[in-house]
């Protein structure tokens, strides 16, 4: 996947300065799980709302002024809404501060950065989405994108799991996808509770049980590193080649544009050359530091 073409971004630079965030307003906050929230936001500058361009799988740098900045993927689809969404799990100082925000709060946003998912590669393919926990966020953007252009794609399998029923994100979407006859939706949890009637089992296991065909298919996986490490071998067993497996990586980032140095894997920067990679690329990385 090529280094992202940024020509279209130029129009959206504030004062020609790539580090200067746009001001955006939080419009709605949804509690996904006890520690995860989705924020709906929109540009304060109405001109930007109309035509803000991004691709599924791209990310932005979000800042609370005075606290700092961090990257999160855009979890809404470019095919939907006149707003954007991002989903945050509470793990550090900035994410904690984000969770303390209320509707109407003003934050900084710059982006979109990164390459995004290769839509052209997915066309006319059977798609297998494999996600764990908050790893559904970037895939969700792609899933809605695909649903909104349903005739361009063949079968869709979604295998999604979380630690417990309470940890499932985007329950409202899961319901929709479950109802959609053109999608095979499988939800699983590592450990059920009294009310849970669905599957119980780790995502890679469930993937093996569901056993989607590798024929003319692409698998797109996102989740915690441990899940990814077990998912690729299962996909391989099912006949997927490394070129047919796609994932998106996460690293500590500051600048988001390949300058501050820290998110590299070998000579590639996750922010600039990723975050979406095929397994073929990853396994050829000279570094085991992903």
């Amino acid at each position, binding site marked *: 996947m090529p*280094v*992202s073409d*940024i020509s279209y971004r130029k129009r959206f630079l*504030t*004062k*020609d*300065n*790539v*580090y*200067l*965030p746009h*001001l955006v307003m939080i419009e709605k906050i949804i509690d996904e799980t006890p520690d995860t929230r989705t924020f709906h936001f929109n540009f*304060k500058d109405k001109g930007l709302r109309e035509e803000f361009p991004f691709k599924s799988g791209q990310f932005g740098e979000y*800042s609370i*002024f*005075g*606290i*700092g*900045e961090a990257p999160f993927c855009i979890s809404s689809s470019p095919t939907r809404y006149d707003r954007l969404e991002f989903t945050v799990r509470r*793990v*550090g100082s900035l*994410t904690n501060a984000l969770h303390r925000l209320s509707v109407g709060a*003003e934050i*900084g946003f710059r982006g979109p950065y990164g390459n995004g998912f290769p839509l052209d590669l997915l066309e006319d393919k059977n798609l297998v989405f494999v996600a764990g926990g908050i790893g559904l966020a970037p895939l969700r953007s792609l899933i809605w994108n695909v649903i909104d252009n349903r005739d361009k794609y063949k079968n869709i399998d979604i295998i999604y799991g979380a630690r417990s029923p309470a940890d499932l994100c985007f329950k409202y979407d899961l319901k929709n996808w479950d109802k959609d006859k053109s999608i095979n939706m499988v939800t699983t949890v590592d450990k059920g509770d009294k009310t849970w009637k669905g599957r119980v089992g780790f995502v890679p296991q469930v993937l093996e049980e569901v056993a989607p065909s590798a024929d003319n298919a692409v698998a797109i996986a996102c989740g*915690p*590193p441990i899940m990814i490490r077990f998912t690729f071998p299962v996909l391989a067993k099912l006949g997927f080649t490394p070129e047919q497996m796609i994932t998106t990586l*996460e*690293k*500590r980032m*500051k*600048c988001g*544009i*390949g*300058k*501050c*140095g*820290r*998110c*590299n894997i*070998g*000579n590639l920067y996750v922010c*600039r050359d990723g975050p979406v990679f095929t397994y073929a690329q990853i396994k050829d990385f*000279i*570094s*085991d*530091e*992903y």
Partner: protein
Amino acid sequence: MNQKISKKDISKLLDELGKEFKVFSPSRESGVTTFAEWDGRDSSFLEWYRNTVISPKAQLQPLYEKMFSFHKDKEGYHLELPPPTDKKLIFGIRPCDAKALMIIDKTFQDTYQDPYYLDKRKNTLLVGLGCTNPYDSCFCTSLGLSPTQSSDVDLMLTDIGDEFLIEAVTDRGIKLIKKTSYLKEATKTDKSKAEEARRQASSKVTRRLDTKDLAKRLLSSFDDQDFWEKVSNKCISCGICTLLCPTCYCFDISDELVKKEGSRFRSGDSCAFPVYTKMPMENPRLEKWRRVRQKVCHKYEFYPMSFEVIACSGCGRCIRLCPVNWDITQILASLPVKVKA
């Protein structure tokens, strides 16, 4: 055609340049050598200056700088960029440090233009000063540099005794010469003196780094954990070699907030620090050997892969200033994989 200037006239020259530029020249403050704004004091640096602890890169990418400030009122946040940069002139930059700027230009120009660095870069003239007394830690010649010649400066000065021979390297340099007083026409003898000075200086750089197939050798040694553990064991993971390296550019971004006003800063960061890559749940480079490997490979393997230039100009600061005398030339010479010619 070459010009020359008497060493006695350097102070006057800098005074004159100071009218148009913010002039920076080698200076010693509290025992630390650095480039400081010329205040007309004296040109005694010509006596002691070999190279500075703080490289002139600090004038283009300062240790920390304000990216923008913000304040909040009834309408919400307002962001304000710092004022545009002054026209600067760095007097006396060594060829290694000038090359280093050329090297980091690549990163700051790549994909997205970095406004802070590039604005300063565009507005800064470099007057190079040939290095006639290199340190025993210098190894610039191994990286294809000459201690006395450079294509990365606007003007180049060479010590020919009581005078400096001046060569214009760029158009900006030619323009500068035209409007500068105190210059004289250089003679043939001056030029041959300069030749001799250059020859001597090059022979004084004795430390060697074999760059032949270096990226390949590193690539083949990449997974040799024993090797990396061995060469990193005495490293103390401080940030000296990176923060003071003229080709290291990594930075951190952080905010300062005082009541409702604040600023976003960026500041030098180092791959030697575990926190550099630390994520809430994991850290891909927690072990010291991984961080040392990253530092070495970034300079001599990844950077050439991306930009076709080694991210090192052989200035030797990392060797000179290291508290435990960790020596990059020794490390690279001891790579387990040798690629045959």
